[in-house]
């Protein structure tokens, strides 16, 4: 147990040294580290609880996605039946996650089935080899046909919705000019957004809380709004309210002239005449063509700019707008004009997002936590070091060296993994100091015992190590299992605790098996002791 080949000893020292050196970038300012080679740019990341910032967990509305798909099937089904002149009674209805339609004549049912089945697309695009389609069309008997999107198709749709949403969220968050935001998918229907340094997430939540579905539609002038409110609404129009107070009703045609997807740019600016904040926008080629055509046909009539089913403004078309650009004015403030421009540039979300969890830590608390954590770490370490010296004297010195290297290695590994350090994480390190000495205590107590048992110095040290190491491994694995489970279930700060605890156990076992032994072995070779001062 006390003999090391030269190569092995060298290997151990080098491993420890390299791992410790990994912690070095943390001691330099971030800007300076950025100029170093890429492989050195690994450092501890401070958790949001230490550096301050916002954590938001957003949920994509699965019901909305489903409802939208069912509505789409209903509209498309109606069109297919009409195009093929197949009569049906009672319209198409959405019921129990399916669309149902009753065909008037039994003899039309086979044609209806085959025409409706043409609506189905293969799942997973061209490479999809499963042969599954995104729509099941079944004959429920008695002329009733049921169109059901299968489970797999809905999951696929949800996945795509999440992917698109993440892109849009990314663009919107980046528009805020924040430093290193983290945007990740979590689970099946959630998006995690972490923005370090953001003190008040109100504006971020406002930006993310809007779908930003922008549409240009004509105002229906055939019915005055107050009559429409009493129920005299033409079938091709709907009643929408104004976005700005007081809520004013507008009768707006359902047909969309140009949608927000055709916008290429949007900027907040000031109107040259009135000097009030406006949002100026540009269309792409197809959008510009559609818009110019629509404005040519409707000179003198009002059109509505609709955002998320609210009318921002309804200006009258004075002349055809052919340049493919324009501006929206609608009692904006500078901020709201800016936000609208951001939303228009970033694009519309495919489904609404809800904030289901929010955690924000101000920079003051973060700084306090760092200071308190550091102080606790110093005091804890100092107390343990003094106690070890008093208890084991020379061997206490050995233990303290091992623990110091141990802590340095924890920081090295954490940096290497770009791990996040949280306040509970600091607690984990302090606790590791308490536990790291345990491996030494186990070894030393065993050596004491072996000495009492009548062995000579060297043989007692040897036996002490041999017997204690098995125990050290067994006892640390149990704690490691607990840490692993914690890592798996935990989020944020708790996960930070699991990481430092787990890494602390790994370095503790490594140090006990190699460095502590090496130090004691070196001492034995040098001193050739007759008795052990333990």
């Amino acid at each position, binding site marked *: 147990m006390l003999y090391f080949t030269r190569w092995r000893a060298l290997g151990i020292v080098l491993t420890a040294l390299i791992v410790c050196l990994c912690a070095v970038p943390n001691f330099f300012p971030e800007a300076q580290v950025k100029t170093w080679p890429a492989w050195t740019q690994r450092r501890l990341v401070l958790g949001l609880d230490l550096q301050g910032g916002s954590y938001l967990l957003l949920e994509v509305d699965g019901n909305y996605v489903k409802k939208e798909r069912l509505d789409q099937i209903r509209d498309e089904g109606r069109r297919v039946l009409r195009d093929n002149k197949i009569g049906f009674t009672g319209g198409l209805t959405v019921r129990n996650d399916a669309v149902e339609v009753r065909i008037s004549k039994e003899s039309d049912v086979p044609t209806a089935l085959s025409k409706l089945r043409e609506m189905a697309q293969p799942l997973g695009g061209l490479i999809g080899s499963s042969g599954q389609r995104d729509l099941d069309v079944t004959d429920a008997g008695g002329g009733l046909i049921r169109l059901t999107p299968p489970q797999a198709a809905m999951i696929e749709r949800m996945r795509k919705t999440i992917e698109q949403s993440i892109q849009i969220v990314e663009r919107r968050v980046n528009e805020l000019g924040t430093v290193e935001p983290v945007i990740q998918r979590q689970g099946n229907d959630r998006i995690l957004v972490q923005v370090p340094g953001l003190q008040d997430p109100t504006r971020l939540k406002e930006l993310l809380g809007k779908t930003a579905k922008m549409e240009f539609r004509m105002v229906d002038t055939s019915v005055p709004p107050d009559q429409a409110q009493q129920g005299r609404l033409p079938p091709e129009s709907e009643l929408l309210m104004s976005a700005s107070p007081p809520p004013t009703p507008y009768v707006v045609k359902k047909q969309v002239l140009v949608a927000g997807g055709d916008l290429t740019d949007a900027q907040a600016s000031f109107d040259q005449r009135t000097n009030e904040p406006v949002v100026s926008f540009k269309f792409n080629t197809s959008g510009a063509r559609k818009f110019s055509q629509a404005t040519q046909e409707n000179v003198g009539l009002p059109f509505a700019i609709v955002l998320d089913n609210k009318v921002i403004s309804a200006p009258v078309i004075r002349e055809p707008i052919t340049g493919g650009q324009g501006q929206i004015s609608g009692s904006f403030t500078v901020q709201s004009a800016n936000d609208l421009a951001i939303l228009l540039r970033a694009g519309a979300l495919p489904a609404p997002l809800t904030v289901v*969890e929010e955690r924000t830590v101000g920079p003051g608390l973060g700084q306090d936590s760092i200071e308190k954590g550091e102080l606790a770490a110093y005091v*804890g370490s100092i107390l343990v070091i003094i106690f070890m010296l008093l208890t084991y004297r020379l061997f206490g010195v050995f233990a303290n060296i091992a623990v110091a290297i141990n802590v340095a290695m924890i920081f090295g590994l954490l940096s290497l993994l770009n791990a996040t350090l949280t306040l509970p994480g600091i607690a984990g390190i*302090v*606790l590791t100091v308490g536990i790291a000495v345990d491996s030494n205590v186990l070894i030393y107590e065993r050596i004491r015992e072996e000495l009492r048992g009548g062995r000579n110095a060297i043989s007692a040290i040897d036996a002490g190590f041999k017997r204690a190491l098995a125990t050290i491994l067994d006892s640390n694995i149990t704690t490691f299992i607990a840490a692993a489970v*914690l890592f798996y279930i935990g989020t944020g700060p708790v996960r930070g*605790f699991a990481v430092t605890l787990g890494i602390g156990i790994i370095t503790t076992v490594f140090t006990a098996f190699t460095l502590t032994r090496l130090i004691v072995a070196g001492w034995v070779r040098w001193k050739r002791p007759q008795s052990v001062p333990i």
Partner: protein
Amino acid sequence: MTHYVLIGLGILIAVLTVVAALGLLPSLRIVPDNTHFDFTRFRRVSFPVSAALSIVAITLFFTHGLNFGIDFRGGTLLEVQAKSGSADIAAMRSALDTLRLGEVQLQQFGGPADVLIRVAEQPGGDAAQQEAVQKVRGALGDSVEYRRVEVVGPRVSGELLAYGMLGLMLAIVSILIYLWFRFEWQFALGAMIANVHDIVLTIGFMSISQVDFDLTSIAALLTILGYSLNDTVVIYDRIREMLRRYKKMPMPQLLNESINSTLSRSIITHFTVTLALLALLLFGGHAIHSFTAVMMFGVVLVGTYTSIFIAAPVLIYLGVGEHREDAAEAATPAKKSKA
């Protein structure tokens, strides 16, 4: 101020290190070398006491319950600090009462300027929670600094609780499997009894002290589990070793020897962990206060007691070492033929 203290302690360490390295310190024995305390006899006291305490803890759990934090109950938590002077809790309370947000708790937290505000979960799903926090921010305005704002919606809180409980179960089961694999099943069972005992008592403590039971508490529970087992495993390792070496020693005596010979280690280790936890408790700030308090109770008080007075003696009842005579006889001829 603290800097000078730290520097002073640093110098003390340097001096002690030199003195220790030169061999000038007296030898310190926390546990005398030849301790033969009859720990297993205490099982007649410790088992009923533990059973009674466990029943008390369970009763407390069902009568007092745990003080679920917002992680598990949902709702809003704000930690605010008055920008000047100390916080006027009464004024804040009356400002918040006009919002009609249901149960709102205000509590001094740390210094006189710091206030912790808890708003119960609002009916009406996730969006309602967001509205509530907006209203609170509006009511308190700019007179305070928002040091921490946490909003947990109803769905997330349910999931977090389920995950937390699942994690606890998962940890117990996987540790058991490991122990079963490394030792015999009796040891695994003994460790599990000790395990459950620890968790039950700690939950009792959380119920009495009404500390927030949240994700951090689950972290504390899992850590307690890990360390209590760590301790148990050290004693079990020794018992296993003794079982191999002394085939004829009666079980209670063998257990006593095992506990006594690892006693010094148990006490020294727990003392160092206590020192570390004490530092966290005194200087680590409010954010981890309840975390360390629970840990202190679980690791230091319960964990040590359990491994000595429960985990080891319970092996007697689980029939460990009963068939050693046969094993010893079976082993003897093999030894002879080898010789």
